[in-house]
Each structure stands twice: as C-alpha cells, then as structure tokens.
C-alpha cells in the first residue's frame, strides 16, 4: 500500500487515481499508523514553499517523513514535494526544508536565458544523468510534464535534467529518497511507468 501524505496542500485526486490506473492501492492520509504501515510514501506538493514547509511541520508530518526516510522506506517527493526534500529554499526569502537530500531550491530565472517564459511549463524530454530504478521503463526521448518556477540547485544527486537553455534538475535520488520535479501523474504513459517503477523498488 502507498501512503500519499496529506498535509493540507493541493489536490491529490489525480495522483491517487494514477496509482489506481497501475493497479496499486494508494491512500491519502495524515494518520501516522497508516503511514507507518505503508510500503511506500509519496510526498506531494503544489504552491509556495514556505506555506507548504510550515504546514508540513505544523501537522507533524515533517518528523514522520524524516523518521520513515531513516527507516529505509522508499519515499518519493513530487514537484514542490521534491523541493521540500532539500536543505533550503530561496523562494521569497530563505526557508528550511527537510534536508534529506543535499541541495537548495533557487529560481530558474537565475540560470535560464532572459526572454524564456517562466514558469517552465509543458512537456520536456528527460535527459538521464545517472541510472535510477525509476527509469526502468524509460525510453530515450520520453517527455514528462513540468510546471515550476524554482528548481533544485547545488545538488549532486540529480539523476535527470530537462533542457531549458540551462539544465534544470528533473529528478533527484539519495538512497531510498527520490524526487521528481515533473508530475508523473500528468505525464501520460511515461509518467505511469515511472510510478510503476517506484512501486517495484
């Protein structure tokens, strides 16, 4: 069973449905017992970093995620959920993340050519930098769906990037902790196969 951690941000309907589509049971929950019993965890997230990080701490889910990560359970952060895994974010100020993977969240405007649109929105090709179990079914040229204005910078644990005049981190990985900047639940068959691969870790 997969636990999608509910800490009051965003709409988790599509994410939950996408696991249903690959025959996996997923529950949206903030119940520590359910999370503890789950085989795998998903840390979702949309919106602003500060707000999400605050909610994650206030609901007690930050400690739960850290504890579960330490236990070796596979955890995947998606979009803002991925960014929350990092040390720090520079989105409107400076805010602390979970620190499960080394790196900082910085504006893509720092690195992309001026004139390019922000957010980085749409389908972009995944360029693999390091092998990952998440890419078990990935084919060369496969595209995934992105919507973001900030990215994982200063990160040695990027497993893939997307080219947007600069290379923007698309996925990160350290031990049993995984993160995708893109939305696998909105990336068609390619995305579903990434979720399937996560379920097979």
């Amino acid at each position, binding site marked *: 069973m997969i636990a999608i951690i509910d800490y009051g941000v965003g709409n988790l*309907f599509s994410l939950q449905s*996408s696991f249903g589509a690959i025959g996996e049971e997923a529950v949206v929950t903030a119940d520590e017992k359910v999370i503890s019993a789950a085989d795998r965890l998903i840390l979702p997230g*949309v919106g602003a970093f500060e707000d999400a990080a605050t909610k994650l701490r206030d609901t007690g889910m930050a400690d739960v995620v850290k504890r579960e990560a330490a236990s070796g359970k596979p955890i995947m952060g998606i979009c803002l959920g991925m960014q929350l895994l990092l040390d720090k974010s520079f989105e409107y100020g400076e805010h602390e993340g979970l620190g499960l993977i080394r790196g900082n969240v910085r504006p893509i405007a720092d690195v992309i050519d001026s004139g390019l649109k922000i957010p980085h*929105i*749409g389908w972009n090709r995944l360029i693999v930098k390091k092998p990952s179990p998440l890419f078990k079914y990935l084919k060369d*040229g496969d595209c995934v769906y992105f919507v973001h204005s900030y990215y994982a910078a200063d990160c040695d644990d990027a497993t893939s990037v997307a080219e947007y005049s600069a290379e923007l981190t698309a996925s990160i990985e350290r031990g049993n902790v995984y993160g995708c900047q893109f939305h696998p639940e909105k*990336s068609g068959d390619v995305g579903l196969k990434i979720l399937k691969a996560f379920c097979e870790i």
Partner: protein
Amino acid sequence: MITKRIIPCLDVKNGRVVKGVNFEGLSDVASPVELAQYYSSCGADELVFYDITASAEGRALFTDILTETAKKVFIPLTVGGGINTLDDFDRVLKCGADKVSVNSGAIRNPDLIYEAAKRYGDQCVVISADVKRQDGMFRVYAKGGREDTGMEAIGWIRRCVDNGAGEVVLNSIDTDGVKGGFDLEMLEAVSNAVSVPVIASGGAGKIEDFITLFKTLPKVDAGLAASIFHFGEVKIADLKAAMAEAGIPTRV
C-alpha cells in the same frame, strides 16, 4: 526544450461533446470520457473541457464527467465555461482539473483572476479571450462570442496576465470555424504583448495550418482545435509526426 502542445478542445453540453461552427449550430459527437481517453492515447498533450451547459443539472453532470475523466486520463486537463467565482474554481479543481480557464467571468468581475491566482497559483489560471476585428482594432467579445464588450483586446489580455493569469488562450472569432488557418496577425500581436504561454485557437483546418503557426510564430506554445480532431480530418498522431519532421519540438 519545451515541446509545442497540441490540445483538442471538447465542448460539453448535457454530458456529450458538441462543437459549433462559428459558435452556432451545435451537433452531438461523442462521449467526453471516451474521447478524452482516445486523444490521450494518440498523443494529445493536454485536453480542454469546455462546459457550455446553462442548467444546474447540466453542471452536476459536467463535474461527474470530469471526475470520471480524471480517473482515467493522465495528461493535463483544463476546464472552462461558466467559471464566475472562486467556488467555481474549487468545484472543478476538486474533480481533477489542473487549470481553469476564465472568459466572461473575468469580464464581469475583473478581480476574479487576481483572487484565483492568489489562492491557486498563476499556473492554474488561464485567460481565454474571444477576439474579433471591429472598427480597425481587436475587440474582446463575451458570452461565447455573441456580445461585443467594446474593450480593446491586447490591453485587456495584458491586464489579465498582470493580474496573475498564467496562460492565454486566444480564440479568433474571425477565423473560427472557417478552417483557413490560425489568425497569425492576431496571435503575433498577443504573443508580443505577454510573457506567458499563448495557445492559438480558431481556424485550424489541416496539418499544414499547425506547421505554419509554429514556424511563423515560434513564440506561440500550443495549438488548440476541436471539430477537425473530433471528425478525424486531422489525426493527432499524423499531425505530431509532421511537426517532428518539420523540425518543430514535439512530443511523439
């Protein structure tokens, strides 16, 4: 590199897909859920569901269809039609929509875009504008293209983007339903005025129209059409193969 998006638009009334020519003379085509699955499987990059129902019963039917679609289709889903309040945003986002497109609702209540962008984020809010040439300028029309607002279109769209709209759907009433190609002149004017993605709508009749659009106006991010896809005049797989062949960044 971000790929150019191809977006079929499904006008939904009483639970069925319909498409009018120049917004009139509607005809029943197919089941929205089935059509959405079909499009997703043949390479559509995104879907737009446009609710043209007026009744409360029809609205409830629409959200049921949306929920059903979001359970089965895993590409971005934009919903428009009858979006007048933040409650309307909430209603469709809960059913699995990723983006919400506002048109007349933003004309009636100019604060709607700002409020929605603040609550749900810019990326969630799409301004859809029906625009027609009138007295030597581009003018915004309301109520599905039936009512001239008298407002100049470029300034209006720019204001919507300044207020937080993260994307623009530009529908040219002049070319809509004519199948003679997209309104390149109008699209260029809008693309030059805003820095968010612009989606071209109205006028596509064949594959070459999309190629011309993306070749002539590299700033345009996506092409949207309805009946040519619904009636199979343009097959999305063929269209995307042709785009890739023409050197246009495409997800195939």
